[in-house]
């Protein structure tokens, strides 16, 4: 069935299936966002570097321990460059950073970049799996709730999403271990296997942590989708599409999802920050050798360079994801694209 002249707006855009074309204005917008991303990055480096100044008293003594001999303290002071002016320390650290040098761990005696690279795959596996679960689950359940608004499906899914928001993710992890590792031994309780070593075992190890981590983000996305798709479903062009004979499901998939997913895309960037942060505690529950457990170990051992490195790397990931989300939004949303 073809669109009638009454089918205007997003529906018409959906019908024409135009290829996204970026206008000069949109490119300028992306350029501005890129400039802002660089500024945010520089400021973030400044904040991460300033973490060292939070160490109570003399950082070198605090890191070496109260009983350390003066030689060790002097060595740490020199290793961290604490004997140089603050601005010089920062610029030197930033210079290293731009060449991929985040300094050396005080405990492992290895480059921080190497340690992070070793632990990164485990964290990335969980974070990406959790994000996929959260987006697919959150959007689908959100659409279901919107389609059956006010009915039993809506109420049940809304209660479930509220439970997802109010339950600590690490506790969900513990309960999942109790249920699916001890009561019904389906998945391993702890540990991690590299994808390259054994993909099946890798999957078995990341399923429970990914679910624990995805729950809160998925619940948030469910709420967002429910609200935005509900708004879309009350629009005139949806009524027109239904009047033209399109089935409820088809309208939902071809019209409401496309236009209702816009606000969802924008929150994914911020959810990424929550996800990376949340993974720290979840990794601890499942004893996964990722960035989270490395961060906790470095807090306990007062390994400042490693801690700074992890905070910076995860923040840079969030900054990049936020930028990419902005670009995606610009490309997807005709209103932004042509303005």
């Amino acid at each position, binding site marked *: 069935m073809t669109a009638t002249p009454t089918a205007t707006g997003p529906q018409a855009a959906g019908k024409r299936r135009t290829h996204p074309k970026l206008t000069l204005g949109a490119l300028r917008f992306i350029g501005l966002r890129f400039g802002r991303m660089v*500024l*945010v990055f520089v*400021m*973030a480096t400044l*904040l991460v570097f300033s*973490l*060292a100044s*939070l*160490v*109570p008293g003399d950082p070198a003594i605090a890191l070496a321990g109260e009983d350390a001999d003066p030689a060790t303290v002097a060595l740490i002071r020199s290793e961290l460059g604490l004997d140089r002016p603050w601005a010089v320390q920062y610029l030197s650290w930033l210079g290293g950073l731009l060449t991929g040098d985040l300094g050396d761990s005080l405990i492992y005696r290895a480059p921080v970049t190497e340690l992070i690279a070793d632990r990164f795959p485990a964290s990335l596996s969980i974070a990406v799996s959790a994000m996929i679960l959260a987006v697919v689950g959150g959007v689908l359940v959100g659409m279901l709730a919107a389609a059956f608004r006010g009915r039993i499906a809506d109420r049940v899914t809304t209660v479930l999403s*509220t*439970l997802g*928001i*109010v*339950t*600590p*993710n*690490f*506790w969900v992890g*513990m*309960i999942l*271990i*109790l249920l699916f590792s*001890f009561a019904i031994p389906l998945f391993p309780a702890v540990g991690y296997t590299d994808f390259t070593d054994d993909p099946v075992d890798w999957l078995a190890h990341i399923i429970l942590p990914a679910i624990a981590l995805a729950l809160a983000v998925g619940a948030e996305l469910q709420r967002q989708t429910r609200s935005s798709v509900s708004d879309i479903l009350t629009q005139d062009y949806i009524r027109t599409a239904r009047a033209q004979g399109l089935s409820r499901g088809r309208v939902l998939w071809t019209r409401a999802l496309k236009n209702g997913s816009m606000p969802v895309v924008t929150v994914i960037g*911020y959810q990424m*920050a*929550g*996800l*990376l*942060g*949340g993974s*720290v*505690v979840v990794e*601890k*529950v499942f004893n996964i050798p990722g960035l*989270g457990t490395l*961060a*906790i170990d470095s*807090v*306990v051992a*007062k390994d*400042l360079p490693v*801690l*700074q490195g*992890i*905070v910076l790397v*995860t*923040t840079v990931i*969030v*900054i990049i994801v*936020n930028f990419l989300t902005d670009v995606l939004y610009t490309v997807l949303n005709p209103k932004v694209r042509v303005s």
Partner: protein
Amino acid sequence: MTQTVPAPAGATTLPVAPPKRVGFLRRLAQQKLAIAGLITLAVVVLVALFGSLISPYNPDVTSLGAVLLPPGSPGYLLGTDELGRDLLSRLISGTQVSLVAALQGTSLTVAIGVTLGLAAGFFRGWVEKVIMFVTDVLMSFPGILLAIAIAGILGPSLNNAMIALGIVLAPGAIRLVRGSVLGVREETYVEAARSIGTPSGQILVRHILPNVVPPLIVYIAILAGQVMLIEAGLSFIGVGVQPPQASWGAMLSSSFAYIDRAPWLAVFPGLMIAISVFALNLLGDGIRDSIGKKVTR
């Protein structure tokens, strides 16, 4: 000159009723879920305040003859932990610690949020640009990780964890307050106050702050739940509450080693967290609906 339009035949003139001013409390009282949340929270607060009076045992006293007893054991309603301490007594004591933590973290976040949000929204210009830029930057950090880093560097303790939380959660509060201020600063009555030379401080306190309070109250309820969740996480990994003090998160941490043998140790503190946060969310939603002009049932 005005023109009168004759009323259509048969139309009756209905007296226009004045808008029914239903008080905020009355509207809140009509919301069953919010009331359920409020009652739950009241019970939790009472337990925190008078817990020591109803606590069956001293929460820190160990009894090696009664280790890991399951719930329902004689004398131990919820069982005992790995050191033979009564779980119910520790849950009650943990209620106080968790609530104090939530209060500390929430107060600090709100204090930072209101101060900087008001400044950004009211003064605009470079003040706003700087504050909002730093806010954007802070929002790029994975919150819990930054809190762990700050609390870990300052030294593991509940106070330091709450300072870390205040810094990490403040951007949300700043944005909210700034948004509310921007919504009212161009109102005619604010302009009028400015035009007659009312000092900025007085305009802020008398005209702008009252408009910021309603959305802030809703936010505080949701925020307190967030603080509770993050405090539990920080205590779980050891940078929050320190033993032998018990918060619900710290209890979950010590229970984890015995999860296969004594799952009840992990279940009850987690339930307490979920129930409290749920109650705060219900209350927050209820307050929001009661403040809004739309919901006057």
